[in-house]
């Protein structure tokens, strides 16, 4: 099945203090021909300038709000621009732009509204054992709480149709947004598929990754969110 027209696809990224890598990441994604939106989440370095120089449309949060808030801003912007498909992509360089085509193909060929990248169906290069154990626990937690039959719960590489993106309304500003997206996908009842992708772990991306303590904070955040409207 044919892929969507490149002009109809927006690749969105949330970036905070990513000046070291953002230009390369944007250039890599731009080579696919899709529109690129970077939400600079109040960075203290020149992330925004470098992303813009590399060809991205840059939206600047006036203050640091968190990755979840930045992603929702990017989704709102892409939808307002008339995007037919939106791809979320991490700004720290651990994803491959080449995987975007597979995600979009999965959406169109399998009539899904969400294509979720999975490193456990694909590959995770140089993934430390501690990270593998933490992610495995997160997958089981997500399966229990959402009912989604997924193999990777915290992969920032996902594609969604316009209908899918319109069903996402993130209210978890920070790390818990990855779980919140899956909860909202489950609640939307829209069809989803998983697609193999490759994640490259580097010292840089590991330093930005989540720890066991972060995982506990995520659970507390998810719980606190349920206590108020």
């Amino acid at each position, binding site marked *: 099945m044919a892929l969507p027209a490149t002009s109809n696809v927006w690749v969105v990224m949330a970036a905070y203090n990513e000046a070291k890598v953002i230009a390369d990441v944007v250039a890599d994604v731009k080579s696919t021909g899709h529109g690129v939106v970077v939400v600079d989440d109040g960075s203290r370095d020149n992330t925004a300038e470098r992303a813009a120089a590399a060809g991205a*449309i840059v*939206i600047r949060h*006036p203050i640091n709000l968190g990755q979840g*808030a930045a992603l929702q*801003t990017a989704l*709102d912007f892409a939808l307002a621009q008339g995007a037919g498909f939106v791809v979320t992509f991490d700004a720290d360089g651990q994803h491959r732009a080449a995987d975007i085509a597979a995600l979009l193909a999965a959406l169109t060929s399998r009539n899904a509204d969400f294509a979720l990248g999975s490193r456990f169906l694909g590959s995770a290069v140089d993934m430390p054992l501690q990270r593998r154990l933490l992610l495995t626990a997160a997958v089981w937690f997500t399966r229990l709480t959402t009912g989604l039959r997924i193999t990777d719960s915290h992969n920032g590489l996902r594609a969604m149709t316009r209908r899918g993106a319109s069903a996402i309304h993130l209210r978890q500003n920070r790390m818990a947004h990855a779980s919140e997206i899956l909860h909202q996908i489950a609640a939307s009842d829209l069809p989803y598929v998983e697609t193999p992708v490759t994640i490259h772990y580097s010292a840089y991306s590991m330093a930005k990754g989540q720890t066991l303590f972060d995982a506990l904070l995520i659970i507390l955040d998810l719980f606190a969110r349920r*206590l*108020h409207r």
Partner: protein
Amino acid sequence: MIAQLLLTMMLFGILLYATMTYRQAPIIGFLAVASAFGGLVFVWFPSYATRLAELVGIGRGVDLILYTWVVISLIMLLNLHLKLRAQMELITLLARKIAIADTTRTS
């Protein structure tokens, strides 16, 4: 008697607060109402507090009232935290609107 009246007024204040909270955070509202009612019973019927305290192994009824007060304080602290979260959501919406409007204007 003076202490009982003062505590009653304070607990009624908490009941009022809990009622106002109920719409935004039903669980917190319910817990605060339950604790405040429990507190009122203990203030006016201290013998119940003593009996319940002995039953749960606290020792004195006065201690049980003190513990109840601590629980009420913690619930209100949690509610304050939730209100801060709600405020942050509003700030986020505002910042998002400004950021998107700025980008749309300049691009």
